[in-house]
């Protein structure tokens, strides 16, 4: 049985699975039920000046019959007064002293506002704070949320203000609606952040109704951009976590967020540098009980790998995450079709012929039976055929040992630089 306890910047949790600051963590009733189900921690729905929400605040994208491939919300922070939330936080912490409660907070970019809310919230016994610099809708228009999170100087300054008075760890939650999240992550670290969390939701519009021409969602026929999350955003979030994890200037723990639906997703985020993970959409889709499979699955995985503690898994894939320019250009893989497994649907041929390198041939053997074959000398190893193939194991990507030594793009450019001229072609 592996040890799933984590310590994220001094915040202890019985396991790495936290609920993210969102509708599931709106009230004490919900957080307490989540803890009963097994969640290790919860980031309380963002506290601040209570807002007013609209109806029709969620929308989802389904894909090929699978519901909630992506999820969009135009819901804002808490609509309940601070005192109501603080009372419920106090009661929840008293009932569940060993589970982590982190208070997400958002106020205007003024020092006295940050001082006030940090002191008042810390008094009720939270284990830490998460500064919300990421809400992309509603709050950004008021100079808060993503409007702060897109300006490194504001991230640094507000983090510093919170840290001036906080006695518990401060996590800074970053927006992905930015060119380079490492810039704001570095700013948070400069401001004194004990950890960073990412990603918040992505600016999005879910769709348009083809009959009414209304946006989806809409409020009485009018729409506004919302925040996108759920399984569809996982690759975006995973990359951002990885980029921060491999940045030497971001030397604080990371709480990974973005489309985590099961233990495998969680393990991937941990491998890419997250000490713990936060979940929202999957809990909204399936309920709090999903954490049971997450705990069991992660436990079994660690046991199979012979890893004693989940903390030993953190960042193990980060050294493998590189810059494009440092990838080996002379590494070669080619596709090989297993004709025993292939069902001759020809999807690989169609994709390759139309959109890749035209190297999969439709042939007929001596018995008149059709089969598909890759012309390996023309195959560039792009993976497209194996991606579109509907049959597991029908196409393998096989490494071909090269006579040539490894050479990266950066090495290439560096070597030919000494020969480079401004001449024109003859």
């Amino acid at each position, binding site marked *: 049985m592996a040890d799933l306890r984590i310590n994220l910047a001094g915040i202890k949790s019985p396991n790495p699975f936290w609920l993210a600051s969102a509708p599931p963590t709106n009230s004490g009733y919900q957080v307490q039920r989540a803890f009963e189900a097994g969640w290790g921690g919860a980031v309380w729905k963002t506290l601040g000046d209570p807002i007013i929400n609209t109806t029709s605040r969620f929308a989802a994208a389904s894909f090929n019959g699978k519901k909630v491939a992506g999820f969009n919300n135009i819901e804002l922070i808490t609509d309940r007064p601070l005192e109501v939330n603080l009372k419920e936080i106090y009661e929840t912490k008293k009932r569940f002293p060993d589970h982590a409660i982190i208070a997400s907070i958002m106020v205007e970019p003024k020092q006295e506002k940050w001082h006030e809310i940090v002191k008042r919230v810390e008094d009720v016994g939270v284990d830490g704070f998460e500064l919300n610099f990421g809400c992309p809708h509603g709050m950004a228009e008021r100079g808060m949320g993503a409007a702060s999170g897109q300006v490194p100087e504001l991230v640094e300054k507000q983090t510093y203000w919170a840290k001036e008075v906080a006695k518990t760890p401060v996590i800074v939650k970053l927006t992905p609606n930015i060119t380079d999240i490492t810039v704001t992550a570095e700013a948070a670290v400069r401001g004194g952040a004990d950890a960073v969390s990412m990603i918040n939701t992505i600016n999005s519009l879910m769709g348009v109704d083809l009959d009414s021409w209304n946006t989806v969602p809409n409020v009485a026929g009018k729409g506004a951009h919302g925040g996108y999350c759920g399984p569809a955003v996982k690759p975006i979030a995973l990359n951002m976590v990885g980029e921060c994890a491999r940045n030497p200037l971001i030397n604080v723990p990371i709480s990974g967020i973005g489309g985590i639906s099961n233990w495998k997703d969680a393990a991937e985020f941990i491998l890419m540098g997250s000490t713990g993970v936060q979940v929202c959409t999957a809990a909204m889709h399936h309920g709090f009980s999903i954490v049971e499979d997450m705990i069991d699955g992660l436990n079994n995985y660690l046991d199979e790998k012979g890893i004693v503690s989940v903390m030993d898994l953190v960042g193990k894939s980060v050294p493998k995450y590189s810059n494009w320019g440092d990838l080996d250009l002379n590494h070669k893989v080619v596709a090989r079709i297993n004709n025993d497994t292939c069902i001759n649907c020809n999807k690989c041929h169609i994709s390759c012929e139309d959109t890749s*390198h035209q190297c999969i041939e439709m042939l007929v053997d001596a018995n008149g039976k059709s089969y598909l074959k890759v012309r390996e000398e023309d195959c560039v190893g792009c993976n497209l055929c194996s991606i579109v193939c509907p049959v597991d194991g029908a196409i393998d990507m096989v490494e071909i040992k090269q006579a040539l*030594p490894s050479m990266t793009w950066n090495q290439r450019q560096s070597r030919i630089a000494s020969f480079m001229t401004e001449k024109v*072609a003859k």
Partner: protein
Amino acid sequence: MSEYETYMEEKNRIDSYFDKGYQVISIFENLSGTFVDFVTGEGASEREVVQLQLITAEARKYIATKLLFVS
């Protein structure tokens, strides 16, 4: 001609020049690919400069690999 066949032609030309003792004196790259100027080696009776245009990605990798690890 397939891209592989084009590459093999370009590779063979590169190898041929190196085998004959030619040396690379300049390389430039533009929208049309990589242009490599070879000059006859020391000891050649006549100095000759020839230019090779490489249009395949594999050949453009190959010339750099030769320069990086052979010369």
